């Protein structure tokens, strides 16, 4: 999936508080483990929750500029469908979008100043993008822990990376073993659930 300069560019997008930065952190650690050069950068608005957050992860032989240029992302990990839609023009031709279908409406939509797009997933597809979508929010709720959205999304993209899914999983599970051991197994299962959901979404698209 890499580009001319041998780089893999992953854009993780979502909303403050969803764990976007943690996701890009574990992706970076996986790349480091494989001996690659890595840069990771965020654009988060003001410190408060609820604003747009994008995190760029670039890895390969040598990374220069930290931000992924428009039209060069291999993969967009959308933690929220409208956010995936907002950033899908950053994908290169043939890029992939992995999208959590769980919608989060901001107050400006709530008070009626703006409309939420009717079908963001379809709008992305209409751009010719290969989209995988499932409700990671609902999955996380089944596990009883909204914060698992992050691990579920990592599971979902794990079969679309230039390295083995297990590399990413080991890093996530190991992080929890060190910091919160009681959550390690739960994250392992959430990762696999995300992986399965992405595979099913692929199957559905093929039908």
């Amino acid at each position, binding site marked *: 999936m890499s580009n001319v*300069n041998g780089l893999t560019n992953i854009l993780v997008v979502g*909303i*403050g508080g969803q764990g976007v930065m943690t996701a890009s*952190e574990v992706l*970076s*650690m996986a790349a*480091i483990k494989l001996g690659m*050069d*890595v*840069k*990771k*950068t*965020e*654009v*988060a*608005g*003001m*410190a*408060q*929750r*609820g*604003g*747009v957050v994008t995190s760029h992860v670039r890895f390969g032989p040598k*990374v*220069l*500029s*930290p*931000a992924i*240029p*428009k039209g060069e992302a291999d993969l967009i990990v959308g933690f929220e469908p*409208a*956010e995936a*839609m*907002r950033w*899908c*023009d950053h994908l290169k031709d043939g890029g992939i979008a992995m999208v959590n279908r769980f919608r989060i*409406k*901001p*107050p*400006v*939509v*709530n*008070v*009626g*100043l*703006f*409309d*939420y*797009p009717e079908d*963001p997933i379809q*709008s*992305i597809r209409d*751009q010719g993008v290969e989209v995988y979508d499932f409700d990671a929010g609902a999955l996380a709720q089944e596990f009883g822990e*909204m914060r698992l959205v992050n691990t579920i999304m990592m599971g979902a993209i794990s079969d679309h990376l230039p390295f083995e899914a297990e590399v990413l999983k080991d890093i996530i599970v190991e992080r929890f073993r060190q910091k919160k051991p009681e959550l390690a197994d739960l994250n392992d299962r959430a990762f696999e659930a995300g992986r399965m959901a992405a595979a099913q979404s692929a199957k559905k698209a093929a039908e």
Partner: protein
Amino acid sequence: MNAIVKAHAQSKHLLSGNEALARGVWEAGVNVATAYPGTPSTEILENLALYPDIHAQWSVNEKVSLEVAIGACVVGSRAFCAMKHVGVNVASDALMSQTLAGVNGGLVLAVADDVGLSSSQNEQDSRFWGRFGHLPILEPCDSQEAYEMAIRAFDLSEQFGCPVIIRLTTRVCHVKSIVEVGERKAYAHKGFLNDPSKWVMVPSNAKNLLATQGKRDDLLKAYVNECDLNFAEEGKDKRVGFVTSGPAYLHVKEAFPDAPVFKMGFSCPLPIAKIKNFAKDVDKLIVVEETEPLVETELRAAGLDLYGKDILPKTGELSPLVIKGPVLKLLGEVVEDQVDTSLDVFPRPPTMCVACPHLSPYYCLSKIHNKVRIAGDIGCYTLGAGHPWKALDTTTCMGASISMALGMTLGASEDDKDKPVIAVIGDSTFLHMGLQPLLDVIYNQGNVTVMLLDNRATGMTGGQEHAGTGFDINGKEAPRANFEKIVEAIGINPDRIRRVNPYEMPTMFKIIKEEIKQNEPSVIITNQPCVLTDRFHKHEPLKVVDGCTGCGNCLSTGCPAIIVTHRETEVRKSGKEIEKAYVEIESAACTGCNLCVSTCGPDVIKPVNFTKEAAQ
């Protein structure tokens, strides 16, 4: 403890520029490190506080933090101070004199520019301070350089006898990349340098020191042309050569991998001779800098023919794409215009948090805004200028709410002069620069109603401790400034000092209405913590039960846990159209703060476990 604190020499880590810089400062043997928080610089001190053998502290503002560092340097320690770009405006009084006095132990000031304004009130270019203050500036382009330049800066500070500025931008501070670290070197403490002719800035001493500063300028000008931090990189495509610094260097290298590049790590004073030499070998010279055309102007003055902001954007962040188009055009290549393929999606501006203690003051202010003027300040509560409250008339800089409010009462027109003026200010901001303005109101017998929103945190920058929280940067207990006593001591009538729980909104509203009627200044102080700190405690969440009339009143609190389920337009008998918005509460997010309950006429906001049967 953060793993990096224990990292061994030669080990490699994924570090942000701020983390890397902190590591470098610690390794340089610094004893005293100070800062006032400010995006994107905040994490530097947060990280330094984790290391042993160093005194790290939050100061009340940037001027104070720099002066503390200066004091430590005068008595012979290495000292460090960090701030965001606008912080230097506050600290500049100290900086502009200390540049004459110079240093004893090394003194380094890290300044982080918010290029692109992700979280600031302006976009100023801190490289000007180097020119204004005759000070050397180092500009790292990534984390590894931030780490190395931190150490180097202390050596340079002692070599040239002056403070050194490390100029960072958001794309250094908040980018993580791989850094190889070393270990802390013990610093041979210099002891107090007893020399009043150096440290006592009276005109006679300062006059002599001007000559010293002039000599230092000459030495620096010679040094930058030999210094290894400024170097040319060869390239086979000599149609253009770039002069650049900081992260712009990385963008240039990515956009034009084959072009010759002159990289400045030590960018003030400019290494003019070296750049002139570089310019000889390229057809066209282009200066790529963030953000003002500063290097460009100085090089033109030195007689070089070049391009810069005449072809590149004058504000905001650069990137490989931003640079590529204009440069290719200059080279006469056919450049496809960038077509905008972005899809139209609603904006998602940052909002206050669910249950933020600032929601209720702004709910009240939004209801009386047509009868009062409201001067705002800087913090999370600046968001009160936006939807749904629209309850601020001004915001300029930290502390300006109270002083501007006084000016607004004094300068008001005839028809306006009876309008009460309210100043809204946070606890951290009040201690930073709000106290003196309040004293000014009192001394000049003005009348301003101050709303001091005390959430026991520096919320905007991530909830840091400050002199009013009762804890220090390490989380250890510290004396806690008592706002009531402070404002009483400087002259506020005790009857006009009102403590209020913001979640008791009707009381809050009543107090505001009472205080704006007074003909002397008042201070209303809220007392509930920022919800993102561990001082906040959740209660049982709420839900909307049957009977919501769609009045939409609860939405005016701005709490993001309240969500519209559907809208309707109701036509009254009179023919008047009324917009209805029916809501639900996202119980998983709701903290049960109860604020919205008092906004609901039909009383249909109830605890999640509420059942009609139980209520009967």
